[in-house]
């Protein structure tokens, strides 16, 4: 969130507070007043409609009185005088559009209008009103009857009529809808709406909209229909988009239904003025707040600025400006705390400096000690390397010794045989020389056969010697020169086992091989031989106790890397394994066997480097893995997994 200036924050705060306050108070005031206004309006409508109905009856009673007098007068006055009376009466009563004096048959005798023509004009006399519903409704003497809306033959417009019959005279007054509306409108308050409905459901007067009078049949309007059926109305009704609190009253005298609607909701003038008041009040409150708060908050702003400057000085220069008193207690407290904080920081800084110096000295001492220790370690590492080289040389020498011992042992028999044959021949030859000549043919032939046999023995043994020497030469060459070449794995293993045969013969253990045929490799036979020699020698040395007869199985087969079983010949990896049935390797030792200088025969001729060298050779030269697992039925199997084609070094 982006920080805002303090002054703006104060303005926001002021605006929010004033807005919330005005909103809550405004809504509360509105809700309370709205309910009250609604109730008052309903009550006002009920009171007003009763007043309206009775007032309308009173006002229209004046019309009734007029035609009553006219009717009675008509019986006593002669025509001419009555005509003048009629004209004068109509002229004085604007609400009345016309008054007809009819005979018993409904024929007009005189018609008073606002027209210039007098009431006894020939146009007005002799008109037949006998089919007029109002005339026909006057079936009793001295009875006033108010009509429903009807079309006037005189004006050609919709009108309301009042009829009165006395003796032979019938007087009918015709009132215009507009005049009625004006009259009812004058009775009711300007803010209320008045509807007057006749018996047929026609709207004869509407104070709100004059054009609606005579247009609407109220059966299309729900609340008016209900009122016609004298049912209770809803609290609020709607008419032409305006809401009203309605109330009705029925005038038995007129046969009309009066409905008054006091505007409701936002159409009500009191609610409108309440809303206007609230809006004006809220606006003034907000405007005043927005003007005054920045002025009033100036001092707070200055104080905050002072505190800010104080903190800034402390942070940048560490200087404490002269103290000023604030009018706000909390600000003074902050100022005091800042000073305290400043003093404490100074104190802590001094302490920190001291601790820092001590620490620096300690670090120097430790650094020196570490440098010395490092030098010692470097020297020890150099010595260790030398020792390792010496050990490796001695390991190689030991291997060479075993080779030489093997050679000597193997050569001993054929050379001894050869010597024995040659010595035998020499003895015979010397014996023959002492005889000077063969005494007989038989002796010569016997000597010749003996010589031939001796030479054959010597030849065979010399050939044997030559083969042995050749084999030893291969092994010696491979192991000393680390030459990469293509070779048959079977042959290499055979050569290695040959070199080891003297050692095996001297031991009580037996060795068997199971070598897959035809594994041609492009790799380092010397390294393979060295690893195999090491594994077999290790088995012979460590697997069994004195006096035990162990078995060693050397296997070679194609394999998929990481699997324990050999697989198809399609693989380009080979596994050479040396399995014994000895005591195995304790779990506590595990992979330590491959660590340099690890030996269980320290001081008994073991250097602890054999398996380490083999392990490194398998990984670094052959590109394979040397590992082992314990057999289920005892003993351990070391296996060398390697690619048929060794990686380029």
């Amino acid at each position: 969130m982006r920080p805002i200036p303090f002054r703006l924050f104060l303005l926001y705060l002021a605006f929010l507070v004033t807005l919330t306050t005005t909103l809550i108070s405004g809504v509360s005031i509105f809700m309370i007043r709205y309910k009250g206004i609604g109730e008052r309006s309903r009550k006002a409508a009920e009171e007003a409609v009763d007043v309206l109905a009775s007032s309308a009856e009173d006002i229209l009673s004046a019309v009734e009185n007029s035609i009553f007098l006219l009717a009675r007068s008509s019986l006593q006055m002669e025509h001419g005088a009555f005509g003048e009376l009629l004209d004068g009466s109509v002229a004085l009563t604007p609400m009345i559009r016309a008054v007809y004096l009819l005979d018993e048959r409904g024929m007009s005798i005189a018609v008073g209008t606002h027209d210039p023509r007098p009431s006894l004009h020939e146009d007005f006399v002799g008109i037949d009103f006998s089919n007029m519903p109002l005339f026909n409704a006057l079936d009793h003497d001295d009875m006033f009857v108010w009509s429903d809306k009807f079309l006037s033959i005189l004006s050609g417009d919709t009108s309301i009529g009042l009829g009165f019959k006395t003796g032979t005279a019938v007087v009918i007054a015709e009132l215009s809808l507009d005049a009625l509306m004006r009259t009812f409108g004058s009775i009711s308050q300007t803010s209320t709406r008045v509807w007057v409905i006749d018996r047929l459901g026609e709207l004869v007067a509407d104070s709100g909209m004059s054009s609606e009078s005579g247009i609407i049949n109220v059966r299309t309007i729900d609340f008016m229909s209900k009122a016609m059926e004298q049912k209770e109305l809803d609290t609020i009704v709607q008419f032409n988009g305006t809401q009203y609190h309605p109330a009705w009253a029925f005038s038995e005298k007129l046969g009309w239904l009066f409905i008054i609607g006091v505007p409701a909701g936002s159409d009500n003038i009191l609610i409108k003025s309440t809303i206007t008041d609230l809006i004006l009040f809220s606006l003034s409150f907000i405007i005043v707040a927005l003007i005054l708060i920045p002025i009033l908050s100036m001092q707070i702003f200055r104080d905050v600025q002072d505190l800010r400057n104080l903190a800034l000085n402390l942070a940048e220069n560490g200087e404490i400006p002269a103290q000023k008193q604030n009018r706000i207690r909390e600000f003074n407290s902050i100022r005091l705390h800042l000073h305290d904080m400043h003093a404490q920081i100074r104190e802590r800084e001094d302490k920190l400096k001291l601790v820092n110096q001590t620490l620096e000295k300690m670090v120097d001492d430790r650094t020196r000690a570490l440098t010395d220790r490092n030098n010692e370690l470097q020297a020890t590492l150099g010595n260790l390397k030398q020792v390792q080289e010496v050990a490796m040389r001695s390991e190689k020498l030991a291997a060479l010794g075993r080779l030489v011992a093997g050679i000597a042992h193997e050569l001993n028999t054929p050379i001894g045989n050869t010597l024995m044959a040659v010595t035998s021949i020499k003895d015979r030859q010397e014996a023959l020389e002492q005889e000077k000549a063969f005494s007989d043919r038989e002796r010569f032939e016997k000597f010749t056969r003996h010589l031939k046999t001796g030479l054959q023995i010597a030849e065979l043994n010399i050939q044997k010697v030559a083969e042995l020497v050749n084999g030893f030469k291969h092994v010696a060459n491979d192991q000393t020169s680390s030459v990469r070449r293509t070779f048959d794995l079977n042959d290499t293993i055979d050569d290695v086992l040959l070199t080891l045969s003297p050692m095996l013969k001297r031991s009580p253990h037996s060795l068997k091989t199971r070598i897959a045929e035809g594994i041609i490799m492009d790799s380092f036979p010397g390294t393979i031989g060295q690893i195999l020699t090491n594994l077999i020698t290790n088995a012979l040395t460590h697997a069994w106790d004195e006096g035990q007869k162990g078995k060693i199985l050397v296997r070679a087969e194609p394999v998929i890397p990481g699997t324990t079983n050999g697989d198809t010949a399609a693989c380009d990896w080979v596994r050479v394994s040396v399995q014994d049935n000895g005591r195995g390797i304790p779990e506590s030792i595990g992979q330590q066997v491959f660590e340099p200088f690890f030996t269980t025969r320290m001081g008994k001729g073991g250097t602890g480097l054999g398996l380490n060298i083999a392990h490194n050779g398998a990984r670094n030269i052959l590109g394979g893995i040397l590992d082992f697992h314990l057999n289920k039925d005892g003993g351990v199997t070391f296996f060398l997994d390697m690619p048929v084609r060794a990686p380029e070094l």
Partner: protein
Amino acid sequence: MKHAFPGIRQWTLATLICVLAVGCGSPRQTVRVGFISGLSGGNADTGEAGRNGAMIAVEEFNEHNTVKAQLIIRDDGNDVEQTRQAAEDLTARKVDVIIGAFTTTTTEAIVSVAGPKKVLVLTPSASAFHLFGKDDELILLNSSTKDNAGDYAMYMHKRAGLTRVSIARDTQNDAFSRSWLTFFEQRLSEEGGIITAIAEFDSRELTDYRHLVKTLLHDSPDTVLFIANSVDTARIAQQLRKADQHIPLFAAEWAGTEQLIELGGASVEGMRLLQNVNLFDEGPDFVRFRGEYYNRFGRNPSYSSVMAYEAVNVVLTAYLKKTPRQSMKNAALHNGPYKGLTQMISFNKWGDMKRESHFVMIRNKTFLPAQD
């Protein structure tokens, strides 16, 4: 990939289809029917009876359909300018159709406003011949003045044996009365009859009845014919009977309302006129309508009640059958014929029709079929 719930895409599609269906396709849930008639002034009887018929039609429709109709009523005050204002108001309120008016002059005023806005107008009773045979936004449910006036001329000559005709013509609804007179005169002349006098009047200015009556009776006519509304016909008939108790009277079909009898009294007894609606029909539809009308409004329906009822039924039936791209006019023209209260209603390609004609006579304060 299967979804455990209907995918958002499916819901969106469904919503879109609904919105499009509501927005573009199916009819609105409320159809607004504008209604203009003379509810004040001299035509208030025709206008009010028409309004009552329309109200019953709308209420019946709303009772039987989920789509609701709203009737918006306006008074033309029998005045051209007020009619135009009423039409402007209704078109501003986006009515789907206007029913009205009941005179030719006011109907023309409505069409002059609604026509350019492509709002269909159905006039229940306007009949001036020049309104017929036009490709406009007006559909007429009445026979033309040519048909009706011709029928009058034929009737007078052939059945009543009256050849010398004196005529009182209202000029307030000049378009109608002039057209009516033209075709009457033409046909009467063809039949060998003559017009003895034509007294023209405007009821708003008429005060000198004596002169009018004198003109009408001047040349010894066989009969007097009124081309005027019921109030003016009754008013002049009252004056005329003072001068001549016996001369046969005829009134154009326009005057044929209950008010003619109420206002005319004995002076209109024996008067004959043509009704384009058979008010003596005993078919179940009309009997039901007549009963309903009487119960509601306390008097019998007039021709304008029946025509307005039928006009509303025509537009509401057409609205329900209207296809999304169809105009109201095409829907009204192509979904007929419609069942009327007393006859089938079918329009030609211009939206015109011919009604049956029945001559009636006022006897004993009521309309009865004419005997001759």
